[in-house]
């Protein structure tokens, strides 16, 4: 790791470190003692059947769905610290500024223009000036190819365009880590590619990314590591070439047979 600030931490300290994550809704246990690490700059895909707990795990990282047990660490700081309510709110708001999140249904702010969607949080939380905010919006929207729509409202955009703006909005906070929760699942097939391209470019820029996805081709071509989850546990993980082509677990094989017919056949 090149960052000098990491030298003070123990050598085993990973950039993202999830330790014994456990989550229950009453009797129902959706995450069962999951431990997982992600290196700085690494791109990890989490795949698995619906109800496997993959979205819950992703949402636990920035505490949108708080864990009932276990710890989440980012860059040497525990995200889900045990603090009194007020202190915890302050702490979590600071941590969330470092973690960008992109949702399946975009969740753009419909009452704000594209520009305002991108600048709202930086202006409010970082106190930057209007001029700085505009420059930031232009820079981030150029990055996702949406500069020409800067003064449109979300209702005037296609799904793919909305998602690209949502990515720009998250990047405008200059996060250390990006979480993608099925970012292309709600899109028409012909709009998926433009969002994938933006994510690929982020990957090339060595953004640390954790991607919950149903798109095996994308996971195979972009990610360094694939994690297969089922029924609240990590069943299998490894480089995509291994997990997709030579899975060792029966459950992984069964899942891939259903979701990867094309890819699996071409790989044989």
């Amino acid at each position, binding site marked *: 790791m090149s960052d000098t600030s990491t030298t003070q931490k123990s050598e085993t300290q990973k950039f993202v470190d999830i330790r014994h994550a456990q989550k229950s809704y009453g009797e129902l246990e959706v995450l069962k003692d999951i431990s997982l690490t992600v290196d700085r700059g690494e791109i990890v895909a989490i795949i698995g059947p619906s109800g496997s707990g993959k979205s819950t795990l992703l949402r636990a990282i920035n505490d*949108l769905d708080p864990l009932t047990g276990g710890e989440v660490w980012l860059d040497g700081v525990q995200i889900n610290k045990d603090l009194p309510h007020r202190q915890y709110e302050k702490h979590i708001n600071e941590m969330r500024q470092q973690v960008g999140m992109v949702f399946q*249904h975009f969740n753009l*702010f419909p009452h*704000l223009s594209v520009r305002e969607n991108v600048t709202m949080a930086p202006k409010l*939380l970082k106190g930057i000036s209007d001029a700085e905010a505009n420059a930031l919006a232009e820079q981030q929207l150029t990055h996702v190819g949406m500069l020409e729509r800067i003064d449109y409202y979300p209702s005037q955009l296609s799904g793919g365009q909305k998602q690209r703006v949502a990515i720009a909005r998250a990047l405008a906070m200059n996060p250390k880590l990006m979480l993608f929760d099925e970012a292309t699942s709600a899109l028409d097939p012909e709009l998926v590619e433009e969002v994938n391209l933006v994510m690929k470019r982020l990957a090339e820029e060595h953004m640390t990314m954790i991607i919950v996805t149903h798109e095996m081709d994308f996971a195979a071509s972009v990610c360094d590591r694939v994690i297969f989850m089922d029924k609240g546990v990590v069943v299998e993980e490894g480089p995509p070439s291994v997990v997709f082509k030579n899975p060792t677990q029966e459950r992984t094989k069964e899942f891939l047979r259903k979701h990867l017919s094309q890819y699996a056949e071409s790989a044989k």
Partner: protein
Amino acid sequence: MGLDFSVVPGYLDTILLGVIWTIAITVAAAVVSFFGGILFAVIALYAPWFIRLPVRFFAWLFMGTPLLLQLFLIYFGLVELGIDLPAFVAGVIGLGLHFAVYNSELIQTAILAVDKGQMEAARTLGCSRGQALRKVVIPQAVRDVIPPIGNNMIALLKDSALVSVIGVSELTLSAQLAIGRTYRPFEFYAVAAVLYYIVNLGMEAVLRRIERKTALSR
């Protein structure tokens, strides 16, 4: 003795001054009821019980008792407690709080109807709950209830006639004044009715404009 509208022009300045006071008290009370409605809605949904319960009791009081009585209480009643409000201020407070309670019901429903992904998206960026409410949730909720709030504001305009009883010389009281001098109730009440209707039309036009302006960003 038939109707005689020829007496009306002599009191036109009194009547028009009444129209201006009616508009003034309606606008002032509308502003109070709008922001008061947002405040009550946020308290009802998010405040701790020791704030929420007294406010709910107060809201129940304002919904369950006649507006006329509320105006008497604020203007005449509070004097006994050493609070001597000018009639106009008492009228704005009475009308404003009364309709704030009704607006609050609408805004509460609208806040709950805003997609929870909106709050999540704002929180994910690092906003506190208060910031997310202020910047993201409440602006959307308010846009959604502009049409029904507009209906409340038209009711407010009509109910503003009640403040004549505490001596605000708005349109109704001005008409009564003219009637007291001329003994021509039909003529002046009819003129007042027409003027209320015209102000009402103007108000509807303003509301439609606001609705159209906010519709684009939906």
